[in-house]
């Protein structure tokens, strides 16, 4: 590296945490107030919580859609819904749950937690972080605007052509979905870049890769997965949109199109997606369980390795969703075999969790209950997954309620239960208050029993041959009882979720004050006040082991983690960048201040997509140029960010 002029360097001052330091940091980091502050904030803690709340709202919308479907299916020959309405409901339910709840909610937790767990002050690209949030919100609004336009997507979340082509779906319905998904893809991509670079470069000095909490590994792994897979689905939807609007021939059978091309592009993303929505949740459970078992996770390295391996293998099995499409036998065998192999890393994680509980002394609190039941769901989902991974069984079970049961055990069991564990666990950190434990346990049992009552009988419904995506069924098929149980169960579960919400509100406003570390947990976020101050860490922590707050107890590590004395980095909004593998200090970077550009860019970009939807080329042109201009001003070099020649204001 060439010698830098002195004015472009700085020696971070080392010092203790003092009242003055806190006051001056608070002044530097304080965002703007009022509407400007609200729309322009780049604070990862605020953005993370917004992400979580938004995704939860979508969970509730998707849940209401599910309940309506369940009323319709409670008994034979119901007439609450028309077939078309049923199509729209199950499509929107799937779209909402998959794209607007399951993935974003984990991003929300990660955005809140990344800098806190890593011992730094904000993400690598704070403005991009705000942008990801706004784009996520607006893509959700975009897709839901289809209800206002009376053109709701109706071809399922998988949206197979030819049914999703214009001949069969002439309105704007599928276009809402297609363009909204491209918009959402932009949010996911920018978010993933942010996670990846934050993980690689912002870990506290000393937090080498083998000392990094599992949750961060999960999110980082899937961020790489997203970078590799999201383009496939964005492209799939873009080509579909071209087919529908400009008469191209990608998916229709006439003029050399191939409907299976859609399936390949779609499942190339949508299979890895399963891991994208479960690996961070598995990471959360891996970090939560040890806290309540009062001992470190058994087999940390194996669990991390399993996480990464699962993602890699996940890219090789997409065709197992296409067993019934008549593809060649060789291909079937390969993809079936590969799907079996994925169970190995999953089993490794399960054994690690069970062993952690086994050798620990579990303290049964709500987060522990959710984590422990998470393991049970994981196993059930895994077993039914092995059944569908076997070609002969799958040909029988394909498109029956059995698959639906498997899918919900996977998604609800491994995603929602993980999320609820995380919610109860990190709630004190987010709000500074505890949730009511008694109510938490009651809500848990409703969710747990409701969930199993809903989806366990579905296995039988499926084995008895009830196809999915039918809006009703005749009497006398023998499906009545299990369907009734399922409907009752879904309402019990919904009631449980309602109790969780009440619990959240009650905790937020009336909960007991939480100290810095109410669970006696070992990771860095618990070393700071709850809720954390704007600048997170007053001095940059220096980490000497995997469990910085348990060092006394465990006697592991090479030295002592330093939490109350260290680099102060108080000359402006600064944070430390460290090397990728060993986390040695590399440079001091400036953190961007609040900005309205990410919000404006989202507005104009969403407008651009809306103009495409309505076929307004001139408006689209203008909005496109405006979006680029927003980017131009957003990235304008600033002396204050140490991006301009000759500047030095530290």
């Amino acid at each position, binding site marked *: 590296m060439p010698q830098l002029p002195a004015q472009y360097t700085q020696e971070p001052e080392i010092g203790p945490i003092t009242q003055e330091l806190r006051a001056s940091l608070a002044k530097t980091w304080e965002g703007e107030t009022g509407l400007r502050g609200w729309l322009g904030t780049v604070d990862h803690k605020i953005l993370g919580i917004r992400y979580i709340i938004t995704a939860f709202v979508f969970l509730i919308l998707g849940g209401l859609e599910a309940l309506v479907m369940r009323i319709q299916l409670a008994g034979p020959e119901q007439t609450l819904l028309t077939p078309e309405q049923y199509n729209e409901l199950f499509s929107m339910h799937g779209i909402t749950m998959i794209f607007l709840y399951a993935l974003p909610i984990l991003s929300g937790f990660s955005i809140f937690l990344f800098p806190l767990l890593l011992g730094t002050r904000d993400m690598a690209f704070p403005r991009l972080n705000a942008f990801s949030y706004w784009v996520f919100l607006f893509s959700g609004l975009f897709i839901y605007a289809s209800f206002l336009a009376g053109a709701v997507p109706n071809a399922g979340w998988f949206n197979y052509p030819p049914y999703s082509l214009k001949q069969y779906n002439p309105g704007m319905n599928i276009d809402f979905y297609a363009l909204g998904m491209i918009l959402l893809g932009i949010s996911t991509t920018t978010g993933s870049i942010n996670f990846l670079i934050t993980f690689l470069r912002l870990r506290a000095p000393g937090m080498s890769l083998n000392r990094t909490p599992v949750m961060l590994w999960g999110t980082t792994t899937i961020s790489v997965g997203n970078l590799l897979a999201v383009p496939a689905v964005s*492209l799939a939807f873009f080509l579909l949109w071209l087919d529908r609007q400009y008469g191209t021939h990608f998916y229709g059978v006439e003029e050399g199109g191939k409907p299976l091309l859609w399936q390949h592009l779609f499942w190339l993303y949508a299979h890895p997606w399963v891991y994208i929505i479960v690996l961070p949740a598995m990471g959360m459970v891996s970090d939560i369980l040890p806290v309540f078992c009062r001992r470190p996770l058994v087999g940390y390295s194996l669990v991390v390795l399993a996480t990464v391996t699962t993602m890699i293998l996940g890219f090789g099995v997409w065709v197992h969703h296409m067993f019934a499409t008549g593809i060649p036998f060789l291909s079937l065998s390969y993809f079936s075999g590969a799907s079996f192999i994925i169970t190995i890393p999953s089993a490794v994680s399960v054994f690690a969790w069970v062993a952690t509980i086994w050798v620990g002394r579990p303290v049964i609190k709500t987060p522990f209950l959710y984590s422990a039941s998470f393991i049970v769901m994981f196993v059930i989902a895994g077993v039914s997954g092995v059944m569908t991974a076997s070609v002969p069984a799958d040909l029988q079970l394909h498109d029956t309620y059995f698959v639906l049961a498997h899918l919900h055990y996977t998604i609800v069991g491994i995603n929602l239960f993980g999320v609820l564990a995380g919610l109860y666990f990190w709630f004190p950190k987010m709000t500074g208050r505890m949730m009511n434990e008694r109510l938490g346990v009651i809500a848990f049992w409703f969710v747990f029993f409701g969930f199993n009552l809903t989806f366990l009988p579905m296995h039988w419904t499926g084995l008895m041959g009830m196809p999915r995506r039918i809006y009703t069924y005749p009497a006398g098929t023998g499906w009545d009882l299990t369907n009734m149980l399922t409907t009752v169960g879904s309402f019990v579960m919904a009631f449980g979720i309602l109790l969780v919400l009440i619990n959240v509100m009650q905790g937020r406003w009336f909960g007991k004050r939480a100290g810095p570390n109410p669970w006696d947990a070992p990771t860095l976020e618990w070393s700071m006040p709850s809720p954390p101050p704007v600048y997170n860490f007053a001095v940059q922590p220096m980490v*000497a082991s995997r469990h910085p707050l348990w060092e006394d107890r465990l006697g592991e590590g090479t*030295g002592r983690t330093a939490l109350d004395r*260290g680099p102060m980095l108080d000359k402006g909004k600064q944070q430390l960048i460290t090397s990728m593998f060993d986390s040695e200090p590399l*440079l001091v970077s400036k953190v961007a201040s609040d900005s309205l550009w990410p919000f404006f860019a989202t507005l104009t970009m969403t407008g651009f997509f809306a103009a495409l939807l309505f076929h307004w080329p001139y408006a689209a042109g203008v909005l496109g140029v405006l979006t680029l201009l927003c980017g131009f001003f957003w990235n304008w070099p600033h002396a204050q960010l140490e*991006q301009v020649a000759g500047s030095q204001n530290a």
Partner: protein
Amino acid sequence: MPETTHEIPDEQRDISFGRLPLGSTDARGNGWFGMAALVVTEACLFAYLLFSYYYMAFHFGRDWLPDELPGFKFSVPMTALLFTSSAVVWIGERGIQKGRNWICVAGLSGGALLGIAFVALEAVEWADKDFTLSTDSYASLYFTVTGFHMAHVVGGVLMLLTMALWAALGKFDAHRRDPISIAAFYWHFVDAVWIAVFTTIYVTPHLFN
């Protein structure tokens, strides 16, 4: 610079990180790595586009291709333009590294002009075709693949022009020049992708003959 290791001593009194670069300097800020990640996902986008092309090509075989295969009349000059532009942009980047602002401005705008010429030539080739986007699946893929690449060239041109403007305004010097390296990186990527597109669209069909 005193060495620090990730083994933090028990006594933290005399720990020191030494002088560290401040802000985005040539020590590679986060921006460059962010761009690298973006390039990875964009590269995947092209991989999926080309996957779609080959998927159809292998399925339908020779009949799928048009009677008149895409030739080299335009595509070879286009390739030459892009390669030259990469070199010119590289010279521009070297310019700022040596603190010569005007070389940088000239290099970046020169690269952008060559990029614009590329787009113009491609537009001429498009107009020259006797099929349209909606003729058949080959035509759809031809226009989509080349169109996607063209859009990336346009994006790169805009980046280069922005950097040229900022360099002309004296925003950068030999050490504060991260954005220029980042834009140049993207530009080289766009050129590299062209090789894959060129091979797929212009070269492989002749192998089938």
